[in-house]
């Protein structure tokens, strides 16, 4: 049986929901970060699926942009995580509930 568009969208929705739930539930900042990546990639999957469905290359271009931004975000985000960890000896986000270091 040929994979349908709806299959991809369903998978994407599942991945996004897992990611969103993970961001809210997880306390470990690394895990939250990974969940954010999961949400981004769920969106990427949607883009690819529609691109293939409509035979339009624009969706694939967006995916490249998202991946580029995700890479940059990862670099900055990991930098912040290291800074916080050095300061607090903890990766728990709830420990970083006050703004000042």
């Amino acid at each position, binding site marked *: 049986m040929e994979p349908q568009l709806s299959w991809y969208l369903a998978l994407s929705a599942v991945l996004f929901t897992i990611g*969103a739930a993970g*961001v*809210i*539930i*997880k*306390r470990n900042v690394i895990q*939250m970060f990974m969940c954010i990546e999961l949400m981004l990639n769920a969106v990427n999957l949607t883009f690819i699926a529609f691109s293939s469905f409509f035979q339009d290359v624009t969706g694939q271009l967006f995916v490249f942009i998202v991946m580029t931004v995700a890479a940059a975000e990862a670099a900055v985000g990991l930098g912040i995580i290291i800074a916080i960890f050095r300061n607090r000896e903890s990766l728990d*986000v*709830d420990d*970083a*509930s*006050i*703004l000042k270091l």
Partner: protein
Amino acid sequence: MENNLLSLIIFAPLAGAAINWFLGRRLRDERFIGVVACGAVAVSTVVAFYLAFKSGGALRSTEPVFDHLWTWIHVGKFRADFGLAMDRLSGTYALFVTFVGFLIHVFAVGYMHKDEGFYRFFAFLNLFMFAMLTLVLADNFLLMFVGWEGVGLCSYLLIGYYIDRKEAGDAAKKAFITNRVGDWGFVMGIMLTFFLTGSISFFNKPAHGVTSALQTIAALSVDPFTAHAIVAGGVTSIAILLFIGAAGKSAQIPLYVWLPDAMAGPTPVSALIHAATMVTAGVYMIVRCSAIYTHAPTAMFVVAVIGAATALFAATIGIAQNDIKKVLAYSTISQLGYMFLACGMGAFVAAIFHVITHAFFKALLFLGSGSVIHGMHHEQDMRRMGGLKKYMPITFATMLTGWLAISGIPIFAGFFSKDEILWRTWSAGLFTLPSPPWSNALWFVGALTALLTAVYMTRMMVMTFWGTERFREKHLDHAAGAQGIHDDAHHDDHAVHEPHESPWLMTVPLIVLAILSTIGGFIGVPYALGSLVGLHPTNYIEQTLDPVIAKLPVGKTEGAPAAEPVWLSQPPQPTDGAPAFVSLDESPEGAHSAEEIRAERLLALVSVAIGAFGIVLGWIIFQRRPLLAMPRILENKYYVDEIYDAVLINPINAGSREGLWKIFDVGVIDGFLHAIGEVVIDGGRVIRHLQGGFVRAYAAIILLGAVAVIGFFAYFGVHAMHFLP
């Protein structure tokens, strides 16, 4: 006639005040400050005399001298100029204000010697001269009001001159606040005048398109003699409102209470402001508005009754005071009452005459008391004086003339003016309003006051200059400190000082004023008395002032048939420039019938007898017993201050504290602000949970928000967008 010199009269003292305030405070040189202050007033005096007496000057022609400086306010029909005018009335006033003011300035240089605030004193004193002359020379109501407030301010500053003493500050506040009550009346009177006539100017100034409010009123018919006229909003209402203003400034019942307390200021201030000049501003204003008052018989009646009541009331208090300045203060109130009695009887000229002679002899008496206080090392209680004539011969001799003048002994100045007022009061009933029983009653009050005046002045002289020398005695009662207001801060436990005569700077003004108190009355010798000794002297004061003063209409007494006002002399003739009243009747024979002359001579004899009897009575009572205790109710001034405290001040205090402060301010204003604060605090207490600092909570909120937005569009469709703005 325009003459720009006129503004020099008012601006010279202003310049003197500025120089002393800015330069004098740095130099701290008494010689410099004194010369500047006296020089400034001397300039005013010289210019005033020049403008009054040069050919075609203010006192020699019917045309006033104008000096239109600039148009101050011009909105719609309302127009107020910064313009000065010297006519016969304001000229007469300016002459004695500048001259007596100059003498008092000279005296003050000696009196204030070695005082800390020497520069401040003379800056204020010059500022006062500026304000007083603005008041006198203003050509409209509003500028007059500026001067009126200016003298009030300077009075406040100078009463409170001894800034380190609480009673001086309290007295200054009392004077200022009491005057506010009067000023309310004055302002309302000005507004009503504008409302009725469309003008606030005293004079016609055709060159500037200004018509005289007084002339407009003079053309109206006379108000009826009823109580209702007071509140009817017509001429009588104006007259009553203006009289409230005059009563505040000139210390009449019920607004007189500030004047005795004002003696907390230095003695030259009492002489200048609270005897000779400022307190007579109310009389000046009423005489200036004589056209209004002659059209308001009810107001005239009120003025006369209040004046007579004040005269008697203050005289009875004056008889029981032990502070030499307090005696003179109550005497001043009493004499001011005389002036208002004259105004109310339509004897405006006699009122101004008494203002002038009073300025001479009361300034003399005040300066004399200042000299005594100076010589006694700042002792004001007459119970600790006595026998001073040996130590202070010049002060004694000069005060002697003042005493005789105020008691009404012939040839001294006070006799002529006081006799004139009493005669006019008596005769008013025969020829004009109010009806004879009233005028005879008022005459009786005036005569009784004259008797009391002679008695209390004799008491003052006896206690001060005759008898045993009580200043050497140790005073056990001094510790009680009951004597309220003393003139100066440093009274050093009254170690025995020999009294000494004052320096020439103080005695020379005394001598000049003594001469004026002796001969000053000859400017107004009435025909009936002059002809008695075979002379025919001109009554200068009446001849000068008569043309600028409105005449009483006659024949409006109760039951009188005449409906139209019948003018005693010619009805007002509008002329350009001059106020509207020009009487051409100047021949003395024509105006005085033989019967009238006989009556006038008889009354003059009566008033001399009263004055002499008063002096003899005072001498008999107080010569042996100068410390005779007076009735307590008189010594305590009829408890009027206490009554005012109980009726007005305490309720206002209590109402302010309990009502305005504790209920309105704390309850309403503070309560409203606190309620706003509490709403914000409570709201914040709830909302701050959104900002807990937990990253996951933020993420959840973002997610919920996104779900809500997407859910909205998913449910209603994209076209639901048109709900949004």
